[in-house]
């Protein structure tokens, strides 16, 4: 699905990603954990194609294509989806109009015809149910005035609508109450198949109780310093990052 090799990225003079290696196969769920500021969101932004970051070294292959050569929109059209840690409010652009445009541009990219209004609305209805998104939210401006939890739910709603191959969920659990967490996680699980993959970025075991990862990686100071199975997350939950920090401080 995606293969990341020795990825280095900086902003200005500051190197934030310092050699990331990660291999995700179809059907897998990977969790990335790590202390604040370690570079998790940077990694997702770089993968999604945010231009503020400069990739200085390394390569990323996504379904056989050189991901780093593609503009952000083409990465999405190829099936990469990023659920933003901080979803952006876009006053004046309705959620529905936004999603219809996105969906149709993705379809056009694959040489498919535009979706009819009827099919589109049926899809909206179906997918908003999946994350129990209030139908009123769908017709409002993108994220405008949404509560923190509603914004996160809206991200997963968009994911459901666009049906990506690889979804990167950047702290989608933060800001969700217990019920919403369960609903969102259940939604993500329902969207899971043997043909797609998920990368979950989180600070909490709580989410991983629902979305059970096949692999857990610890990102620290721009590198994956440790990988393991789902028990690694439990271990972190119990011990915190102190040991990791001590162990890798010198390598700074």
């Amino acid at each position, binding site marked *: 699905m995606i293969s990341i090799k020795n990825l280095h990225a900086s902003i200005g003079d500051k190197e934030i990603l310092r050699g990331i290696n990660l291999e995700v196969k179809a059907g897998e769920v990977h969790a990335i954990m790590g202390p604040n500021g370690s570079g998790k969101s940077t990694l997702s932004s770089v993968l*999604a*194609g*945010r*231009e503020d970051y400069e990739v200085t070294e390394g390569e990323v292959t996504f379904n056989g294509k050189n991901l780093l050569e593609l*503009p*952000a*929109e083409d*990465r*999405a*059209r190829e099936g990469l989806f*990023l659920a*933003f840690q901080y*979803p*952006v*409010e*876009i*006053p*004046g*652009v309705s959620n529905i*109009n*936004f*999603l219809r*445009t*996105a*969906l149709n*541009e*993705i379809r056009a*990219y694959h040489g498919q015809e535009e979706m009819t209004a009827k099919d589109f609305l049926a899809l909206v209805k179906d997918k908003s149910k999946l994350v129990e998104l209030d139908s009123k939210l769908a017709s409002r*401006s*993108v994220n405008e005035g949404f509560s923190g939890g509603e914004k996160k739910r809206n991200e997963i709603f*968009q994911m459901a609508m*666009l049906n990506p191959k690889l979804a990167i969920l950047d702290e989608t659990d933060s800001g969700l109450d217990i019920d919403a967490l369960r609903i969102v996680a259940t939604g993500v699980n329902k969207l899971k198949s043997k043909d797609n993959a998920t990368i979950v970025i989180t600070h909490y075991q709580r989410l991983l109780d629902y979305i059970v990862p096949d692999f857990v990686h610890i990102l620290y100071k721009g590198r994956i310093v440790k990988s393991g199975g789902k028990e690694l997350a439990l271990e972190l939950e119990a011990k915190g990052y102190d040991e990791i920090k001590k162990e890798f401080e010198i390598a700074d």
Partner: protein
Amino acid sequence: MSLVVDNKSAVTQNLLEQLQKKSGKIAFMPDAEIISAIRYLEDKGIPNNKHEDYKYCNIEAVLRKEFKSVEQSFNELTNADIAPLKIDEAINLVVVNGVYNEGLSEKMIVKGLTVKSLNELSSSEKNILSSQAKADTDALIALNTAFSANGLFLQVDKNNVIPMPLHVIYVNSGNANIVANTRSFINVQANAQATLIESFYNIGSAKVFSNFVSEKCVGENAKLICYTFQNEGPLSYSVNTNQVKIGKYSNYNNTTMTLSGELVRNNHNVVLADSNCEAHLNGLFITNGTQQVDNHTLIDHQMPNCESNELYKGIAKDRSTGTFNGKIFVRKDAQKTNAYQSSKNILMSDDATINTKPQLEIYADDVKCSHGTSTGKIDTEALFYLKARGIGEESARKLLLQAFAQELIDKIEIPSLQERVLHLFEKAL
């Protein structure tokens, strides 16, 4: 009258000479007024960028550069020329090169509505001409007064509500450089209501300097909703002066949409002359190339309990320039005034310029006034969010700019006008 050639206003002198040679005598403006208008103009000169109010909009330079020779070689127009400019829902009235053209206008008898040319005014009616636009206050009003063509007079008699919009198509057309001094008077009497669309076009291949002056009176408890639709194209340079006076309990609402024109200067001056009235001025422009759009508004609160509201938005692309200059006066008797003003702009290129200048002069103590301006680039976070969902750069930009403008486009309550604006707006994006 004698013309003294004065170096400091050689451009003005040249213009005056050419216009005097080539324009016919105007029947409806009293000679004395014409003479004093010319004197004023000779004295003050056509404004250039040394003039505080024309700092970003050098009219003199335009005349020097583009209108050294003025041919006044006007074109006649036919129904076929006008047909595509009409608006179906409205009564379409046509003014060609400043002259009201009855032949091209739709004839409809509507109770309480008077439409005629300025020289058909009776001598008592003539008294109100120039009551709002005084030649000794502004050089371009003076120029218009001196050379005004036989424009349009439109009146809604008291207690009448005109059921359909009135659409005045001001169209200029020349074979070679023309200067059109178009003038109109709109009088909405007490308890009357009307919706007016004023559209501005230039047909043909000649450059036009259009100096438009419209006086508008809104009587007691009357309502006038106005749409100004400006689409004069790249050969046109225009100054559009609206001198508006509104009465007690009245409501005046204007939305100005500027979609093309190499230079468009709008002077929109509204006097809230009596208590409990309201004025709403809205504007939207999108400029590209080397276009220049300059919206100057003046809201003059003279009496208590009135409200004014201004919302102007602009998008400047390429090397274009947009200006918003909004003056609000609150006179000492205008207690309990509410006056709001907002100007928001987006710069689409590093070479585009936006100038904004709010000016509040408040002489009453119990008032609520607020103003805000913002000018920025397109929101890159929002742009990335859209792209990250598979929306291409172009459509993402368009979505965001449309969203920015939507608030103003929504103010147009005439569907086919709204469609026309939206179509041109999208094309200009």
